């Protein structure tokens, strides 16, 4: 872990400076500063509407920041002259709803972006596709269409599709939130392996066990700001801030939290889908 921290100091793979994002009058991000080192795994946690998904989407410019800068691998994405398509090739993104291309087979989902975007030839694209399907344990589904796969399988294909582009960084936007509980494990196992291989990962998640065991750092967000940033032991194990404690206790035992906090209306408010 300590070597990793040193690496982080040497080179920040993802760097966010003074980031603000508003949708109309609604300011979702209110000044975010964040650095993620090479090979570091950072889990972003927080209540719905805290802005964590928006932050992640700003890192590959799916959302245009209102103010501030985003760097990935030393390139400033927020620079108006940057070739955003070229930068995005280096950033893999996995969505909550998988977003596989339903009109293509599993293999074609992996080969088409390689061929169209990276201009790889047919043979190479097919080879890379096969390698990455094996990596997520779905070689036998190569010829299937996404609609015939379970949610967990679809999400693993989506991870393989992103990996086939050879990204330097992987972003995960609540990758297991749309899955049935029994399918979550397979996806997390793939992500865990990826983390062990040294991939730089930024993961928005509600999976506290995953965050505790896999993350190098956990970032807790609320109300559009980073409230707490530290090791899993610090942030999840012994949170310093009241808001973090409140969030964690509610996550671990929703019923308990309501009794302890004694403010049911506040709890109800926080539970409303915000983003």
């Amino acid at each position, binding site marked *: 872990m300590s070597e990793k921290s040193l690496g982080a100091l040497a080179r920040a793979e993802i760097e966010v400076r003074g980031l603000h994002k508003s949708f109309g009058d609604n300011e979702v991000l209110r000044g975010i500063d964040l650095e993620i080192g090479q090979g570091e795994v950072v889990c972003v946690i927080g209540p719905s509407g805290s802005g964590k998904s928006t932050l992640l989407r700003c890192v*590959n410019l*799916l959302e245009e920041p209102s103010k501030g800068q985003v760097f990935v691998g030393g390139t400033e994405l927020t620079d108006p002259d940057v070739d955003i*398509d*070229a930068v*995005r*090739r280096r*950033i*893999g*993104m996995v*969505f909550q*709803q998988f*977003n*596989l*291309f*339903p*009109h293509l087979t599993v293999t074609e989902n992996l080969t*088409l*972006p390689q061929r*169209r*975007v*990276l201009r790889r030839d047919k043979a190479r694209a097919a080879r890379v596709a096969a390698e990455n399907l094996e990596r997520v344990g779905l070689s036998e589904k190569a010829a299937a269409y996404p*609609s015939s796969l379970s949610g967990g399988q679809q999400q693993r294909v*989506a991870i393989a*599709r*992103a990996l086939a*582009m050879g990204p330097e960084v992987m972003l995960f936007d609540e990758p297991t939130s749309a899955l049935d509980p029994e399918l979550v494990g397979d996806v997390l196992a793939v992500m865990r392996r990826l983390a062990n291989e040294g991939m730089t990962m930024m993961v928005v998640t509600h999976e506290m066990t995953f965050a505790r065991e896999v993350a190098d750092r956990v970032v807790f967000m609320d109300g559009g700001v980073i409230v707490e940033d530290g090791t899993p032991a610090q942030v999840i194990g012994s949170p310093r801030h009241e808001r973090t404690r409140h969030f964690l206790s509610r996550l671990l035992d929703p019923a308990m939290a309501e009794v302890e906090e004694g403010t049911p209306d506040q709890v109800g408010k926080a539970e409303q889908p915000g983003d």
Partner: protein
Amino acid sequence: MSDQDAPRGPRRDTPLPPKQDIPLGTPLQPKKKGLTRSQKRTLSQGAQYAVFVAAVIAFAVSADWARLKNQFAQVDIAEQMFPDVITMALKNTVLYTLSGFAVGLVLGMVMALMRLSSVGPYRWFAGVYIEIFRGLPALLIFIFIGVAVPLAFPGTQIPGGTYGKVALALGLVAAAYMAETIRAGIQAVPRGQLEAARSLGFSPARAMISIIIPQAFRIILPPLTNELVLLFKDSSLVLFLGVTLEERELSKYGRDLASTTANSTPILVAGLCYLLVTIPLGFVVRRMEAKAQEAVK
């Protein structure tokens, strides 16, 4: 739909007030007549059958069958139409339709993309085009292409002769309808598809071509096929362009023959030839729609 939903009322978290208990066997309304509901239904159905049978009988009795047979079912005239009605007239109809469809598809795609463009003037132009060509009768457009254009631009030739003119006229009409269909199809593709493509490094144009449009076409295949059926019938308007004998399609051919033979049999045969194509196409559309319905589930 809303009528049916209305009595259920909005969903509430608070418990609904207790239902009023109505003793079993209590009539909801005082009976007006001695008929039960099923008796009424039987009566109503019986009346409908009676009206239908009466109408058929009235037609069968009043029609002059000998005359109708003479006018519409002259076997020797019908025989004389073959094989030209197929090898020339039907062939031309199909050619006109397909060429018009092709032009319409390309132009419609351009208009749909312009309608979705972020450039204001593109959107306005496409909007004006669609409104004008959807609002005009196809007949007027045929006359415009056949008469007004040669007069207004003397010396200009629409390439391809009659075939070119038909493709253009039918294409102009079809494009307006197809543009709206294609636009709807593109917008029906979930937003996440574009986001996934962009996050993989696709440019907006490449994402549109490789990811969005192929999915949009699956969605709009049934309405596009329907448009093909409509064009198939509209191709009869070719006769307003003035065509040579060899360029005649089903309607013109049938009409010409009807006037030379002073008999309506050719019209009937031409009509049957249309149905030969449109009924199977309609069947295909319904199959595709049913399949699309299933895919949604």
